């Protein structure tokens, strides 16, 4: 019985590109977070913080639209939040890439599995889940 996957060497190439993709994503998003962090500290360093009670509306940056709006005004918090978004989408980009690579390998079962995982994540993007 043949147990191993067929395209071991093709898999290795894919893994190499995947690794680079993840690394680039992390470096890019951390750079954005740092940039936003400096602007945020520069304009807020003397202010006081109070995170003692959870308030959903406090940051005002809980949607993609709000984040982009804040970025247009060079708001440090919004830039940090954009970096966080990039970080969240790094593994999602990885799933998208895997779907394509399985497509090239003609492994349709895993194309389906990948698309299914992607659908679950995209579903969480709709804010219906947040009551």
């Amino acid at each position: 019985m043949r147990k191993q996957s067929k395209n071991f060497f093709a898999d290795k190439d894919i893994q190499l590109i995947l690794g680079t993709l993840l690394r680039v994503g992390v470096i890019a998003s951390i750079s954005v977070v740092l940039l936003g962090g400096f602007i945020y500290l520069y304009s807020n360093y003397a202010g006081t913080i109070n995170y003692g009670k959870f308030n959903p509306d406090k940051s005002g940056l809980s949607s993609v639209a709000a984040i982009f709006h804040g970025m247009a005004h060079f708001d440090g918090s919004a830039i940090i939040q954009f970096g966080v978004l990039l970080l969240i989408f790094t593994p999602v980009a990885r799933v998208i890439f895997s779907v394509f690579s399985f497509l090239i390998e003609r492994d349709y079962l895993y194309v389906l599995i990948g698309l299914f995982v992607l659908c679950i994540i995209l579903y969480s993007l709709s804010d219906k889940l947040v009551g």
Partner: protein
Amino acid sequence: MSVLLFTVIVLIGAFLAGLVGSLTGLGGGVIIIPLLTLGLGVDIHYAIGASIISVIATSSGSAAAYVKEGITNIRIGMFLEIATTISAILGAVITVYINPGYIAVIFGLILLFSAAMMVRKKVDHSDNNTSGKLAVFFKLNGTYPTENGVKEYAVHNVVGGFLMMFVAGVISGLLGIGSGALKVIAMDNIMRIPFKVSTTTSNFMMGVTAAASAIVYLHRGQIDPGIAMPVTVGVLLGATIGSKILVKTKTDKLKIVFAIVVAFLAFQMIYNGLSGRL
């Protein structure tokens, strides 16, 4: 507390959490949540939001190094992600309906469990004998490089592993941690995957799992930039340096010391959760 002081304290704390977390294999989230809640009086919902972001950063950062070595089994990861993403979203959705005190208690119990798993002797159950029909159908069996050439391995009990991953995903979404200890149970003990493959594959999956619940947290306003920034930067920096030291040092003694610290934090979380202080 001023913004600057808060940022500096969290940055240093997150750096240490990332460093020790990567040296002991426990991850940064388990330390960063007690630090924020017990140490700095931050609401546990904010702490969870910041922690999940650091999980994505460390997972993606180290997965990049692992996949290049060709040990990660992408098919196993992808297949089990079906379970972990659904359950992580589920966990993230229900977390606000649960009394914060109970979340602290659950967190404490998971901490105790993780500490026990960390000091326990690991036994490799992997073999290349018989393999179930499901493992063959989903092409989960694979190979990995060793000193004596390429070694083949077979995956067992796919259904059991899948269900355990579902539990791990709920915990991850509920508490904002990677729940690596539960994933190890699923992969090492139930599916009997070799260590080298299970560690890297579980780490690889962690990013996608965390991303699913992080989006829910973001929408709910649980991710505050003022906390997320120092936590993410600190943990990532600590974890990167930790993985560089890891190659050169023996961590057995450190693990025992750290297990005691974690157990202490666990009891603190449980006590504060039960007395309604969190």
